[in-house]
């Protein structure tokens, strides 16, 4: 239970090209918070975690745990439990020995240790696998051992680097509930890396979206989802249509734009958006905030279906809206809808939002 602060932390690698892997990152994570790093592959998430764990020293900047400067404190004095992206399991130890390692170092007595190891293996659905050798496990099983090893020591700070990436949806959901429970019970501060946005949304107190080593936006899930700071975040979190529309009017927190199919709409915008009539504004609208109706609907914009993809829960379509391809996600689509069909689209104006480029 401790807060973690990164103060303008940067990290450059000797051979990493001229860009920094992590570039002037400022983050403050409150004690007990569940904080998620989200961003495209190679954006610097692992590097950030490794600096918090103490495996890299920042090229510049400071890291604090509470009020203490831990920038150069050795990793074993940080009381962080990390799940490595590549697991880093000890190949010479059995599953149970791997999980027990941290407890042994903490001089937990044998019986207690055995109990906790078993409990942890149960939490990741690996009860009964304690005596297996690591190389006799499947990929997902190995990942769960790595998770159990970090959870079992109840560290002050949990660093989880894509700990569920190799698990099936069902197990992932169960395990993440377990992680969240343990984290909340112990009041652990958690920094979580995932590429699964639904997961990030469901678990996190706050999310930082990164790109190319820089933080693009930090905020609660709903905030990031509904009020993305810029086009990158809008497009990266979930899917989004970011339309460049002509501005016909602007107020402090709203902008009025003209839609492609015709008609004007006033949408929310961040304060200081700086858009003025006559210019254009980027407006983000998510596929699921567009409803599919018939062309006869008077409030709908007319379009033509150019792609249809069935994905289980929803059907994804791309609809050509006056030359602008717009993605639409619809839950019960009319049966037999096909490419070339004329449809009507209703944009939910409450969910539209002006973003920075």
């Amino acid at each position, binding site marked *: 239970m401790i807060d973690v602060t990164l103060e303008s932390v940067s990290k450059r690698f000797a051979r990493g090209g001229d860009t920094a892997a992590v570039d002037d990152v400022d983050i403050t994570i409150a004690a007990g918070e569940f904080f998620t790093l989200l961003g495209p592959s190679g954006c610097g998430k692992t590097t950030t975690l490794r600096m918090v764990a103490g495996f890299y*020293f920042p090229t510049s900047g400071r890291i604090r745990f509470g009020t203490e400067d831990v920038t150069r404190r050795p990793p074993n004095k940080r009381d962080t439990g*990390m799940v490595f992206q590549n697991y880093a399991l000890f190949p010479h130890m059995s599953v149970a020995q791997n999980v027990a390692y941290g407890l042994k170092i903490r001089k937990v007595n044998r019986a207690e240790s055995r109990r906790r190891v078993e409990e942890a293996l149960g939490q990741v659905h690996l009860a009964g696998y304690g005596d297996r050798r690591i190389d006799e496990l499947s990929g997902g099983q190995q990942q769960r051992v790595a998770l159990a090893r970090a959870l079992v020591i109840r560290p002050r700070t949990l660093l989880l680097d894509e700990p569920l990436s190799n698990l099936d949806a069902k197990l992932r959901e169960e395990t993440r509930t377990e992680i969240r429970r343990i984290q909340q019970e112990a009041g652990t501060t958690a920094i979580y890396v995932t590429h699964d946005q639904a997961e990030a949304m469901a678990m996190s107190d706050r999310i930082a979206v990164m790109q190319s080593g820089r933080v693009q936006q930090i905020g609660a899930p709903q905030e990031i989802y509904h009020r993305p700071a810029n086009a990158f975040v809008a497009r990266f979190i979930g899917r989004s249509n970011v339309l460049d529309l002509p501005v016909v009017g602007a107020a402090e927190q709203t902008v009025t734009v003209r839609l492609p199919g015709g008609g004007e709409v006033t949408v929310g915008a961040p304060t200081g958006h700086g858009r003025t009539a006559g210019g254009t504004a980027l407006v983000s609208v998510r596929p699921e905030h567009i409803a599919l109706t018939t062309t006869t609907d008077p409030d709908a914009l007319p379009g033509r279906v150019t792609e249809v993809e069935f994905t289980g829960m929803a059907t994804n379509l791309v609809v050509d809206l006056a030359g602008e391809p717009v993605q639409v996600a619809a839950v019960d689509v009319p049966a037999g809808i096909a490419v070339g069909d004329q449809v009507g689209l209703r944009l939910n104006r409450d969910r539209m939002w002006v973003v920075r480029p």
Partner: protein
Amino acid sequence: MSTIPVTPSAATVPPVTEDPTPPRAPRRRLADRFGGGAGSRWFPYVLVFPLALILFGYVVQPMFATFAESVGVNGVANYTAFLSGDGVARSALVTSLIISAASVLLCGIVGVAMAFLLKRFSFPGRGLIEAIILVPAALPPLIGAISFQLLYSETGILPRGLQQLFGAENPVLPFSGIAGVLVVHTFTMYPYFYLATSAALTGMDPSVEEAAYNLGAGRVRVWRTVLLPMLTPALVSASLLVFMTSLASYTAPLLFGVDRTMTMQIYINRTNGDLPMASTYASVLGVVSVLFLLGMRWYEGRRSYRSQSKGVASHRREITNPFGRWAALVASLLATAVLLAPVATIALVAFSEDGSWTTEVIPAAYTTANFVTIFSDPEAFQPILNSLQMSLIATVGCVVVGVLIAYAVRRLDFRGRGLLDVAVMLAWALPGTVVAINLISAFSTGNAFSFGQVLIGTFWIMPLAYFVRFLPLVFRSSSASLAQLDPSLEEAARNLGASWWRAFGSVTLRLMLPGVLAGALLAFVHGVGEFVASVLIYTSDTAPISVEINNRMYSFEVGTAAAYGMLQVVLIFVVMVLSGRLEGGRRSTREAARWTA
């Protein structure tokens, strides 16, 4: 001490990471500084400083003394003489280089092939071969070389046997000159490659090999493009050892009459009383070795060899290839015969009457008198015990120091890494005589490195000499196995709260163990057989077995010498079997079984 910056002082400590200007923490508690670990920037120096000091005192400084002697008062005169001279020096250098390069190649082929056979196939008798595989390395130098002569030279068993068999005029296929030297070198030094390669094969990520097969590569191609390159650290380590050993090899060229070698010239110049010239040769030898070392370092450093895979992959490719299995069996039987031939020859000598074996293919008369002679001497076992004890002490020292230096050089980032590497290996590049003489000069009187103790004439000078000479063996093979090891394992341990020492002991060291053990075995075996340095520093209480053997040889009691030699071989064989048990011979059998299913 100020001439070379092997150990930069604390004042000039550079930052640990690639970070040019680290932020200075305003206040750092002392406990924080010294409770730290591999991460803190002074840690490498704390770890390395004592090691560097030892090396500096025992290896580097004496080496510089040698160099200073070669430079003498008249500067480059000796080197001019060396280069211009009557061509002896140049041809000696060239011959030495050729022999060394060829030895590396031959030992490489034999050693890697043996490792492949034994680690990748399981067949009856595999365990036995694994135990005798190091026996050639255990042959006492002088007797070993003579046994090769008895086997392969013009008057040897094989050529004469073939001669009789085919009724030929002359002995068939005798080895002489450089070819003879290479045979001896291949036999005695392929274990460097064998040990390093098998340790590396054990630690290698098998899925990488699978990936190559999957992309369509055949077995040979996989070896050429994936396995051998992945074994680079091990091969580099073994190449270094073989190259330097060959360069400093003395007995084999001597016995096969190749006198245009650097070591022979050193010896001749010392006999001439031309010490500065001898030092010149020794210095050139050192320079060549260092250049080779730097070249190898560069070559190895260009790539990475550690697994980048996620998680732990097991050796689980399954091949059923009855042909391969039988081929392996036949090849191994053949290898066994060849491996054991020199030992068998020694046994023949040990059981034959002195002087009874002249022009016959094998001796005519047999006796156990030689062994009776040895065993009836109440002090016969003292030299054996001495050798065991001193080698053991030295090996322990080598393991402790060698592993730490290997870690420092591979994993820590500090100024002078390369120099440390060179300093360790120098001791191997130098002829044993030079090392011994350096030690005598260093410890004839008390000095700082011996805490003011005079070590000459005491027990401790012997283990110390072995330690200095054989440290490179442990260092190299530890370093090679460390190169394969994913550092994130150590990080994981540290992250779970283990101090550096704990993480090192329970994870890193444990996983490097095959390499460390291989090095330790070599160091021990070499310690037991060491002669050239021992003879200059032993006392009557510490006479090692090699000196005893040599004395017998000197008085031409070949039979008893061979009997002693046999004892030594048996002894080392026992150690080998025991350590094989230690390392888990069953595990290695299982591993091999995995590959043949």
